[in-house]
Each structure stands twice: as C-alpha cells, then as structure tokens.
C-alpha cells in the first residue's frame, strides 16, 4: 500500500470512527462500532431509523464535525458512507476556502 492510499484511508477511518461512536451514543444503538457496516442503510431496513432520528443524525454531524447538513438531504442520509463522503467533501471545501 502506497503512502497516498494510507493517508486517504486514515482520513476516512477517522471520520467513520467518530461518526459511528456519536451515532451509537445519540441514538442508543445496540451495536459496537465494528458491527456497523459503513454501507448500512440508515432508514428503513438496516438501522431502521425514523424521521425523528434523522434530526439526531443531522445534529451528530454538526456536533462532531461542525458541518451543517442542508434541509433537502435525502441523498446524504442514505448510509454512513454517504454521510462520510459529505463530511470529507465539506472539510476539503473549508480547507480550500481558509
């Protein structure tokens, strides 16, 4: 594994781990972080969250990463991985504009 790939993995793993821990805490989920596959669906089958939980997910991202999720957010809130993609992209945008 080259160093660029290692760096990419480390950055992503950091966001994933923080996100999972916060989701478990806020939503009182009966899982360990390693039980939660990143592609697991947040709503419906999968974690089975409802519209009230959606608000907690939005607050979780805001609290953990200081990033706001827009109101029209169905594409972002599909899975942990799609949430992580959004966070990484927003962090990158913030770095560029800083």
């Amino acid at each position: 594994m080259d160093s660029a790939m290692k760096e990419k993995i480390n950055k992503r793993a950091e966001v994933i781990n923080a996100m999972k821990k916060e989701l478990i805490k806020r939503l009182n989920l009966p899982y360990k972080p390693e039980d939660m596959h990143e592609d697991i669906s947040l709503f419906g089958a999968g974690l089975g969250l409802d519209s009230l939980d959606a608000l907690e997910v939005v607050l979780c991202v805001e609290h953990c990463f200081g990033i706001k999720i827009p109101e029209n957010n169905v594409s972002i809130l599909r899975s942990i991985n799609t949430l992580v993609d959004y966070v990484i992209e927003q962090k990158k945008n913030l770095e560029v504009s800083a």
Partner: protein
Amino acid sequence: MRILPLHDMLEAKGASFEERYGAQIVSTVSDLKKEYSLIRDGVGITDFSFMQKFRISGDSGVDVLDRLFAGNVAKIRFCRVLHTFLADERGQLVADAYVANNDEEFIVLCESVVDDTTLKKIFNGHSVLQSDETGTAKLEDITNSHVVFGIDGYNAWKVVKDLFGADVLGLPYLSVETYSFEGGPVLLFRAGKTSEFGYLVMAPKENGRKLMEALIAEAEKHGGGLCGTNIHHAMRLEGRFFNIFAEGSRVRDPLPLGLQWMIDFDKESFLGRDSILQRREKGLENKIIGIKVNAADGDLLVGDPIFDNGNKIATVEAACFSHVLNAYVGLALFPVDIAYAGLQFNLRNADGPNVETISMPPIIPKSLSVKLDEM
C-alpha cells in the same frame, strides 16, 4: 422441481424459466434493460412464488421463531415485519427472511439457498417444535398453497392503491396488512428491495391467476408490466440490499456481509449463534464493499480478482451493469484494513482496468422524491 402455480400463464406472456434450489423461477420476461426501466420509471410485477412460506400459530409460536431466526421475533410489533436471516449450526446463511406479526399468527417468507425439503428439516429439526414446552406452536408449510407477487417501482404505490384502497399509502416500510381481493383475503407486505416503492402480495393460489391479471392490468396503466427475477439482482445491488442469491450464496458468513443489523446479539439462542458470536469476538478479517468500473474500461464479472501493486487483494462477489451510472457496479470482499470507499485498484491483473471502491448505495432512486404520507 417445484413448478410455479402460474407457469402456463407466465409462459404465454413470454416468461423464461430456470431452476434455483429446487424451485422454478421466472428469470426474464423481456430484455433486462426494458425490465430495468419498468421498475425505475414505472412498475414491475414479478412472480416471487418460488419463496418458501410458513404460517406459525399458537401461543408459543413466537418463542419457536425466536429460537430459529437471528433477529428478535419477540419484539415484532403487531402488523410489522422483521427482516432477518436463518443460519445453520455453523452460522452460515441459509435463508433471507421476512417474519411478519399478523394478528394471531406469524407469516414467514424465505428466500433460501436450500431446497424446500432441507429448509423444512431445519424448521422441524433441531426439535424446535417438539421441544416447545407448551406444545401449542403449530407450523404450517404454505409454500405450495399460496402465491407471492412483487409490485416494485416508482409507480408501485399507484397499483396497490387502485387495487386495495387509499389506506395502503399509510403503510410504513416493513409492515403487513390484510386486504380483500375477489372476496378472498390477501396479505400485503410493504417490503421491497429495489430502492423504489415495493410491496409483496400473498394470496391463496386459487386466486393467483385473477390477482396476477389484475396487477398486470393496473401496472400497464402506470407504465409497467411483467418482470422476471433476474432484474432484481441489479436492483438489489444498486440499492445495496442484501441478495442471498448473489453475494449471500458465495460468502455465506453474515458478518463480512455486514448483516449485523439483522442480528440481536443479546438473544440467548438462535440457530448458529455460538459460531457467529465466536467469529464476532475474533474480529473480522474481510468485509464486503462496493466497487465500480466505468463502462468504457470493460466489464465486471463475479469471481474477478482485484489487484493492488501486483498483489491479489480481493475478489468480486456480485456484479451488475448500472444503467443509471453507465458503469458496472459490484461488491468485493476486501481485507478490513483496506475496505474503504474512494480507493483505486486494478481488475483481473496488475495492469488491468481501473476499479474504484465506492460508497453504497451509488444511485438516488426516483421514489425518494415522493412522500406517500403527504398524499
């Protein structure tokens, strides 16, 4: 082989058939691209009668099912459906199942990788029913006496609304309700795996022909028609729904497949529990993640190896062509330390086409833009 009750009718409508684990299935009805469009833009009607179906009644029926399935059957609320799995003693997947709490009984719909006889042996074996202390659980195999049809697609809700009434719009995902059709009861599950709106309707096979005709007639009003089961492989993969007939039949271990959400780890017993818990304790070595190959770079086949700097690191376990993305998407089993989205590797050999690991699900279905509860 168990023949579909509507075989002749479906054949007359152009269906092609094949055998899967001792049961006949409709593989295709027209070309896959057309069936794909039916579901993504209209509605597809699919014969899912190959599913194994059971009715469990009696006071202790819930305990019997709880000792079989990985999920917590005892916690299923009235009129709700649990999506879970059945494993064998080694904790290897046997069936993907919907368990529905329906009034005084439970209904189980299985998609399994074993034939009817073997599955029934698992249900009856392990002395599950015999060991039931109260002896009041009654298991009835209704596989041959009932049909199950899938209604999936952007307009699926219009078809069920026209047939069963406007209150179907209030059904939450993973719920079940009884309706009437031609004077007989039908059971409607809100439980699709295409990421568009989805329903399964179960009826006594005597009503099957009329129900299928009515479903097709309604579907045609809304840009739909008859589909085979093959197109559901692509739909499930694009929506990142677990498919026991694709990655599930190759990997069989629920943990690398990411099916922990189907398991209640606090339950004292279910088939395969000890093996699954031991593997969980040990930690995962591999896990399945999404991959993509652009159409211009070539195709993607199940079994293809994936290389990193000349070393084989992963294998493709499921694949399909995504018409939405104009790319092949798939699932591959990677070592956990590199099982992350956003990485680039080579397919088939060290200098092979580029394959990218991706976040799943990779598409945004049209149905996400429709809010049924606001209609």
